[in-house]
Protein backbone atom coordinates (compact mmCIF):
# COMPACT_ATOMS: atom_id res chain seq x y z
CA UNK A 1 0.00 0.00 0.00
CA UNK A 2 1.43 3.38 -0.92
CA UNK A 3 2.29 5.73 1.92
CA UNK A 4 0.10 8.82 2.08
CA UNK A 5 -3.01 7.19 0.67
CA UNK A 6 -5.27 4.84 2.60
CA UNK A 7 -8.23 2.73 1.58
CA UNK A 8 -10.92 1.70 4.04
CA UNK A 9 -12.29 -1.86 3.94
CA UNK A 10 -15.46 -0.39 2.43
CA UNK A 11 -13.40 0.92 -0.51
CA UNK A 12 -13.46 4.64 0.36
CA UNK A 13 -9.99 6.18 -0.05
CA UNK A 14 -8.35 9.21 1.59
CA UNK A 15 -5.30 11.18 0.57
CA UNK A 16 -3.58 11.30 3.95
CA UNK A 17 -0.86 13.73 2.86
CA UNK A 18 -3.41 16.30 1.67
CA UNK A 19 -5.46 16.02 4.88
CA UNK A 20 -5.15 18.77 7.52
CA UNK A 21 -2.62 18.04 10.29
CA UNK A 22 -4.07 16.39 13.38
CA UNK A 23 -6.85 14.60 11.49
CA UNK A 24 -6.99 10.94 12.50
CA UNK A 25 -8.14 8.26 10.06
CA UNK A 26 -7.90 5.47 12.59
CA UNK A 27 -10.68 3.06 13.41
CA UNK A 28 -10.81 1.53 16.94
CA UNK A 29 -9.48 -1.69 15.41
CA UNK A 30 -6.29 0.14 14.41
CA UNK A 31 -5.59 1.00 18.04
CA UNK A 32 -6.28 -2.61 18.99
CA UNK A 33 -3.79 -3.75 16.31
CA UNK A 34 -1.15 -1.43 17.82
CA UNK A 35 -1.37 -3.52 21.01
CA UNK A 36 -0.29 -6.71 19.16
CA UNK A 37 -3.15 -8.76 20.68
CA UNK A 38 -1.67 -12.13 19.68
CA UNK A 39 1.58 -11.46 21.58
CA UNK A 40 -0.53 -10.12 24.43
CA UNK A 41 -2.39 -13.42 24.80
CA UNK A 42 0.86 -15.30 25.54
CA UNK A 43 1.91 -12.63 28.03
CA UNK A 44 -1.47 -12.80 29.80
CA UNK A 45 -1.29 -16.57 29.94
CA UNK A 46 2.21 -16.81 31.47
CA UNK A 47 1.51 -14.01 33.98
CA UNK A 48 -1.80 -15.63 35.00
CA UNK A 49 -0.08 -19.03 35.36
CA UNK A 50 2.46 -17.52 37.79
CA UNK A 51 -0.27 -15.68 39.67
CA UNK A 52 -2.23 -18.91 40.10
CA UNK A 53 0.89 -20.90 41.09
CA UNK A 54 2.24 -18.44 43.66
CA UNK A 55 1.70 -19.28 47.32
CA UNK A 56 -0.49 -16.89 49.26
CA UNK A 57 -3.72 -15.11 48.56
CA UNK A 58 -4.69 -12.16 46.45
CA UNK A 59 -8.27 -10.89 46.10
CA UNK A 60 -9.61 -12.15 42.74
CA UNK A 61 -10.47 -8.61 41.65
CA UNK A 62 -6.95 -7.36 42.43
CA UNK A 63 -5.56 -10.43 40.61
CA UNK A 64 -7.65 -9.56 37.55
CA UNK A 65 -6.46 -5.94 37.69
CA UNK A 66 -2.84 -7.18 37.88
CA UNK A 67 -3.33 -9.32 34.75
CA UNK A 68 -5.05 -6.41 32.99
CA UNK A 69 -2.08 -4.16 33.82
CA UNK A 70 0.35 -6.77 32.46
CA UNK A 71 -1.75 -7.00 29.27
CA UNK A 72 -1.92 -3.22 28.82
CA UNK A 73 1.80 -2.89 29.57
CA UNK A 74 2.54 -5.51 26.91
CA UNK A 75 0.22 -3.64 24.54
CA UNK A 76 2.10 -0.40 25.25
CA UNK A 77 5.37 -2.18 24.37
CA UNK A 78 3.77 -3.35 21.12
CA UNK A 79 2.59 0.17 20.24
CA UNK A 80 6.02 1.69 20.97
CA UNK A 81 7.64 -1.11 18.96
CA UNK A 82 5.38 -0.38 15.97
CA UNK A 83 6.02 3.37 16.32
CA UNK A 84 9.78 2.82 16.07
CA UNK A 85 9.64 0.10 13.40
CA UNK A 86 7.14 1.63 10.95
CA UNK A 87 9.88 1.97 8.32
CA UNK A 88 10.86 -1.72 8.35
CA UNK A 89 7.25 -2.87 8.81
CA UNK A 90 6.45 -1.11 5.51
CA UNK A 91 9.01 -3.32 3.75
CA UNK A 92 7.77 -6.70 4.98
CA UNK A 93 4.70 -8.41 3.50
CA UNK A 94 3.65 -9.74 6.94
CA UNK A 95 3.59 -6.25 8.52
CA UNK A 96 2.99 -3.80 5.65
CA UNK A 97 -0.71 -3.42 6.47
CA UNK A 98 -0.15 -2.50 10.12
CA UNK A 99 -1.82 0.83 11.05
CA UNK A 100 1.40 2.92 10.91
CA UNK A 101 2.95 1.78 7.60
CA UNK A 102 -0.54 1.79 6.03
CA UNK A 103 -1.00 5.43 7.11
CA UNK A 104 -4.14 4.93 9.20
CA UNK A 105 -2.40 5.99 12.44
CA UNK A 106 0.21 8.77 12.55
CA UNK A 107 3.57 8.26 14.36
CA UNK A 108 2.66 10.94 16.92
CA UNK A 109 -0.64 9.19 17.71
CA UNK A 110 1.10 5.82 18.14
CA UNK A 111 3.81 7.29 20.38
CA UNK A 112 1.30 9.11 22.59
CA UNK A 113 -0.88 5.99 22.76
CA UNK A 114 2.08 3.77 23.75
CA UNK A 115 3.47 6.17 26.38
CA UNK A 116 0.02 6.80 27.92
CA UNK A 117 -0.67 3.07 28.21
CA UNK A 118 2.80 2.37 29.63
CA UNK A 119 2.55 5.06 32.32
CA UNK A 120 -1.10 4.18 33.08
CA UNK A 121 -0.53 0.44 33.42
CA UNK A 122 2.49 0.89 35.73
CA UNK A 123 0.69 3.50 37.88
CA UNK A 124 -2.45 1.37 38.29
CA UNK A 125 -0.34 -1.72 39.04
CA UNK A 126 1.54 0.20 41.74
CA UNK A 127 -1.54 1.75 43.33
CA UNK A 128 -3.85 -1.28 43.13
CA UNK A 129 -1.44 -4.23 43.50
CA UNK A 130 2.10 -3.45 44.72
CA UNK A 131 5.13 -1.44 43.63
CA UNK A 132 7.43 -4.44 43.10
CA UNK A 133 5.06 -5.78 40.43
CA UNK A 134 4.80 -2.24 39.00
CA UNK A 135 8.60 -1.87 38.94
CA UNK A 136 9.08 -5.17 37.08
CA UNK A 137 6.32 -4.18 34.63
CA UNK A 138 8.06 -0.83 34.00
CA UNK A 139 11.36 -2.69 33.51
CA UNK A 140 9.80 -5.11 31.02
CA UNK A 141 8.29 -2.27 28.94
CA UNK A 142 11.64 -0.44 28.93
CA UNK A 143 13.45 -3.67 28.02
CA UNK A 144 11.18 -4.40 25.05
CA UNK A 145 10.72 -0.85 23.75
CA UNK A 146 14.27 0.47 24.27
CA UNK A 147 16.80 -2.36 24.80
CA UNK A 148 15.27 -4.71 22.21
CA UNK A 149 13.46 -2.49 19.68
CA UNK A 150 15.70 0.58 19.58
CA UNK A 151 19.09 -0.83 20.55
CA UNK A 152 19.42 -4.49 19.59
CA UNK A 153 17.00 -5.52 16.87
CA UNK A 154 18.74 -3.74 13.99
CA UNK A 155 22.26 -4.21 15.32
CA UNK A 156 22.86 -7.85 16.23
CA UNK A 157 21.70 -11.30 15.12
CA UNK A 158 21.49 -12.11 18.85
CA UNK A 159 18.54 -9.66 19.06
CA UNK A 160 16.08 -12.46 19.76
CA UNK A 161 18.18 -13.98 22.58
CA UNK A 162 18.40 -10.82 24.66
CA UNK A 163 15.02 -9.52 23.50
CA UNK A 164 13.54 -12.79 24.72
CA UNK A 165 14.08 -11.57 28.25
CA UNK A 166 11.41 -8.93 27.66
CA UNK A 167 8.84 -11.64 27.01
CA UNK A 168 10.04 -13.57 30.06
CA UNK A 169 9.11 -10.92 32.64
CA UNK A 170 5.33 -11.61 32.95
CA UNK A 171 5.66 -14.62 35.31
CA UNK A 172 7.81 -12.50 37.65
CA UNK A 173 5.08 -9.83 37.63
CA UNK A 174 2.27 -12.35 38.22
CA UNK A 175 4.18 -13.93 41.12
CA UNK A 176 5.16 -10.57 42.67
CA UNK A 177 1.52 -9.44 42.47
CA UNK A 178 0.58 -12.24 44.92
CA UNK A 179 3.60 -12.58 47.19
CA UNK A 180 5.31 -9.17 47.00
CA UNK A 181 8.63 -10.93 46.31
CA UNK A 182 10.30 -13.10 43.66
CA UNK A 183 11.66 -16.55 44.56
CA UNK A 184 13.33 -19.45 42.68
CA UNK A 185 10.25 -20.80 40.83
CA UNK A 186 9.31 -17.52 39.08
CA UNK A 187 12.95 -17.08 38.06
CA UNK A 188 12.84 -20.60 36.57
CA UNK A 189 9.66 -19.62 34.69
CA UNK A 190 11.60 -16.58 33.44
CA UNK A 191 14.46 -18.86 32.32
CA UNK A 192 12.05 -21.22 30.52
CA UNK A 193 10.58 -18.39 28.39
CA UNK A 194 14.03 -16.85 27.89
CA UNK A 195 15.46 -20.12 26.50
CA UNK A 196 12.26 -20.98 24.60
CA UNK A 197 12.31 -17.72 22.63
CA UNK A 198 15.33 -18.39 20.32
CA UNK A 199 14.13 -21.78 18.96
CA UNK A 200 10.61 -20.33 18.59
CA UNK A 201 11.60 -17.19 16.68
CA UNK A 202 14.53 -18.64 14.75
CA UNK A 203 12.31 -21.41 13.34
CA UNK A 204 9.95 -18.62 12.16
CA UNK A 205 12.89 -16.57 10.88
CA UNK A 206 14.10 -19.54 8.80
CA UNK A 207 10.96 -19.73 6.69
CA UNK A 208 10.42 -15.93 6.74
CA UNK A 209 14.08 -15.18 5.96
CA UNK A 210 13.37 -13.38 2.66
CA UNK A 211 11.09 -10.89 4.42
CA UNK A 212 13.68 -10.08 7.10
CA UNK A 213 16.48 -9.78 4.53
CA UNK A 214 14.36 -7.36 2.48
CA UNK A 215 13.81 -5.18 5.56
CA UNK A 216 17.50 -5.31 6.52
CA UNK A 217 16.84 -6.88 9.93
CA UNK A 218 19.93 -8.91 10.92
CA UNK A 219 18.07 -12.06 11.96
CA UNK A 220 20.36 -15.06 12.45
CA UNK A 221 19.41 -16.88 9.19
CA UNK A 222 20.09 -13.69 7.21
CA UNK A 223 23.49 -13.07 8.82
CA UNK A 224 24.84 -16.54 9.66
CA UNK A 225 22.89 -18.76 7.26
CA UNK A 226 20.42 -21.60 7.66
CA UNK A 227 22.86 -24.26 8.92
CA UNK A 228 24.17 -22.09 11.76
CA UNK A 229 20.60 -21.13 12.72
CA UNK A 230 19.52 -24.77 12.82
CA UNK A 231 22.53 -25.61 15.04
CA UNK A 232 21.66 -22.72 17.38
CA UNK A 233 18.02 -23.89 17.54
CA UNK A 234 19.18 -27.34 18.64
CA UNK A 235 21.64 -25.91 21.20
CA UNK A 236 19.02 -23.67 22.80
CA UNK A 237 16.55 -26.58 22.83
CA UNK A 238 19.12 -28.71 24.67
CA UNK A 239 19.45 -25.91 27.24
CA UNK A 240 15.70 -25.32 27.43
CA UNK A 241 14.60 -28.87 28.20
CA UNK A 242 16.72 -29.41 31.39
CA UNK A 243 15.71 -25.98 32.68
CA UNK A 244 12.05 -26.91 32.06
CA UNK A 245 12.52 -30.06 34.15
CA UNK A 246 14.41 -28.21 36.90
CA UNK A 247 11.38 -27.00 38.93
CA UNK A 248 10.40 -30.65 39.41
CA UNK A 249 13.99 -31.86 39.97
CA UNK A 250 14.45 -29.24 42.71
CA UNK A 251 11.24 -30.32 44.41
CA UNK A 252 9.44 -27.04 43.68
CA UNK A 253 6.65 -28.84 41.80
CA UNK A 254 5.06 -32.31 41.83
CA UNK A 255 4.81 -35.24 39.44
CA UNK A 256 2.10 -33.67 37.25
CA UNK A 257 4.42 -30.89 36.16
CA UNK A 258 7.45 -33.22 36.06
CA UNK A 259 5.84 -35.71 33.69
CA UNK A 260 4.51 -32.98 31.37
CA UNK A 261 7.93 -31.26 31.31
CA UNK A 262 9.74 -34.52 30.45
CA UNK A 263 7.31 -35.63 27.71
CA UNK A 264 6.88 -32.21 26.04
CA UNK A 265 10.63 -31.61 26.30
CA UNK A 266 11.41 -34.91 24.56
CA UNK A 267 9.06 -33.97 21.70
CA UNK A 268 10.72 -30.52 21.50
CA UNK A 269 14.16 -32.16 21.15
CA UNK A 270 12.84 -34.53 18.47
CA UNK A 271 11.39 -31.60 16.49
CA UNK A 272 14.61 -29.58 16.89
CA UNK A 273 16.64 -32.59 15.65
CA UNK A 274 14.37 -32.75 12.58
CA UNK A 275 15.12 -29.07 11.93
CA UNK A 276 18.85 -29.69 12.44
CA UNK A 277 18.75 -32.51 9.89
CA UNK A 278 16.91 -30.44 7.28
CA UNK A 279 18.97 -28.85 4.52
CA UNK A 280 16.20 -27.01 2.67
CA UNK A 281 16.85 -23.44 1.64
CA UNK A 282 13.41 -22.69 0.20
CA UNK A 283 10.62 -21.76 2.63
CA UNK A 284 8.22 -24.21 0.96
CA UNK A 285 10.49 -27.13 1.92
CA UNK A 286 10.94 -26.03 5.52
CA UNK A 287 8.28 -28.33 6.94
CA UNK A 288 10.24 -29.27 10.12
CA UNK A 289 10.81 -25.56 10.86
CA UNK A 290 7.08 -24.81 10.52
CA UNK A 291 6.26 -27.82 12.72
CA UNK A 292 8.73 -26.70 15.39
CA UNK A 293 7.34 -23.15 15.34
CA UNK A 294 3.79 -24.41 15.88
CA UNK A 295 4.84 -27.00 18.45
CA UNK A 296 6.85 -24.45 20.46
CA UNK A 297 3.62 -22.51 21.11
CA UNK A 298 1.87 -25.67 22.30
CA UNK A 299 4.91 -26.59 24.42
CA UNK A 300 4.92 -23.30 26.32
CA UNK A 301 1.17 -23.53 26.83
CA UNK A 302 1.39 -27.10 28.18
CA UNK A 303 4.34 -26.39 30.48
CA UNK A 304 2.70 -23.37 32.12
CA UNK A 305 -0.72 -25.06 32.27
CA UNK A 306 1.00 -28.02 33.99
CA UNK A 307 2.53 -25.68 36.59
CA UNK A 308 -0.95 -24.43 37.49
CA UNK A 309 -2.49 -27.92 37.42
CA UNK A 310 0.32 -29.26 39.58
CA UNK A 311 -0.15 -26.49 42.13
CA UNK A 312 -3.89 -27.07 42.43
CA UNK A 313 -3.92 -30.90 42.08
CA UNK A 314 -0.78 -32.07 43.88
CA UNK A 315 -0.13 -29.33 46.43
Amino acid at each position, binding site marked *: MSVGFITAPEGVSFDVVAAPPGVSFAD*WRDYLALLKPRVMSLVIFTAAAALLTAPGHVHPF*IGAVAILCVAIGAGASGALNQWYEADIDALMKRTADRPLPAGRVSPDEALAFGVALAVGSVAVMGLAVNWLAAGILAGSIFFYAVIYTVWLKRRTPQNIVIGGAAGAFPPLIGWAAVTGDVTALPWLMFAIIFLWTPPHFWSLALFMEADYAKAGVPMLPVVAGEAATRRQILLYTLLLVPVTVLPWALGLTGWVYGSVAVVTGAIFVARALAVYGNTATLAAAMVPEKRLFKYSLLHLFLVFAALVADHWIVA
Partner: protein
Amino acid sequence: MNVDWTPEQTAEFNRRRRSRNLALGLVLGALVLIFFGVSLVKMLP
Protein backbone atom coordinates in the same frame (compact mmCIF):
# COMPACT_ATOMS: atom_id res chain seq x y z
CA MET B 1 -13.89 20.46 8.50
CA ASN B 2 -12.38 22.46 5.65
CA VAL B 3 -11.28 19.60 3.37
CA ASP B 4 -12.24 18.68 -0.15
CA TRP B 5 -13.90 15.32 0.49
CA THR B 6 -16.70 13.59 -1.36
CA PRO B 7 -19.87 12.76 0.65
CA GLU B 8 -18.68 9.10 0.82
CA GLN B 9 -15.33 10.16 2.25
CA THR B 10 -16.98 12.43 4.80
CA ALA B 11 -19.36 9.64 5.85
CA GLU B 12 -16.47 7.18 6.20
CA PHE B 13 -14.40 9.69 8.18
CA ASN B 14 -17.36 10.33 10.52
CA ARG B 15 -17.90 6.58 10.96
CA ARG B 16 -14.27 6.10 12.00
CA ARG B 17 -14.39 9.05 14.38
CA ARG B 18 -17.59 7.69 15.95
CA SER B 19 -16.01 4.26 16.42
CA ARG B 20 -12.99 5.84 18.15
CA ASN B 21 -15.17 7.94 20.42
CA LEU B 22 -17.32 4.96 21.35
CA ALA B 23 -14.23 2.86 22.16
CA LEU B 24 -12.77 5.68 24.26
CA GLY B 25 -16.06 6.04 26.14
CA LEU B 26 -16.10 2.32 26.91
CA VAL B 27 -12.48 2.43 28.11
CA LEU B 28 -13.18 5.39 30.40
CA GLY B 29 -16.26 3.63 31.78
CA ALA B 30 -14.21 0.50 32.44
CA LEU B 31 -11.57 2.58 34.24
CA VAL B 32 -14.25 4.07 36.52
CA LEU B 33 -15.48 0.56 37.38
CA ILE B 34 -11.91 -0.66 38.00
CA PHE B 35 -11.04 2.23 40.34
CA PHE B 36 -14.35 1.81 42.15
CA GLY B 37 -13.75 -1.94 42.52
CA VAL B 38 -10.17 -1.48 43.74
CA SER B 39 -11.33 1.10 46.29
CA LEU B 40 -13.97 -1.31 47.60
CA VAL B 41 -11.52 -4.20 47.87
CA LYS B 42 -8.89 -2.02 49.59
CA MET B 43 -11.47 -0.90 52.15
CA LEU B 44 -12.50 -4.47 53.01
CA PRO B 45 -11.44 -5.51 56.51
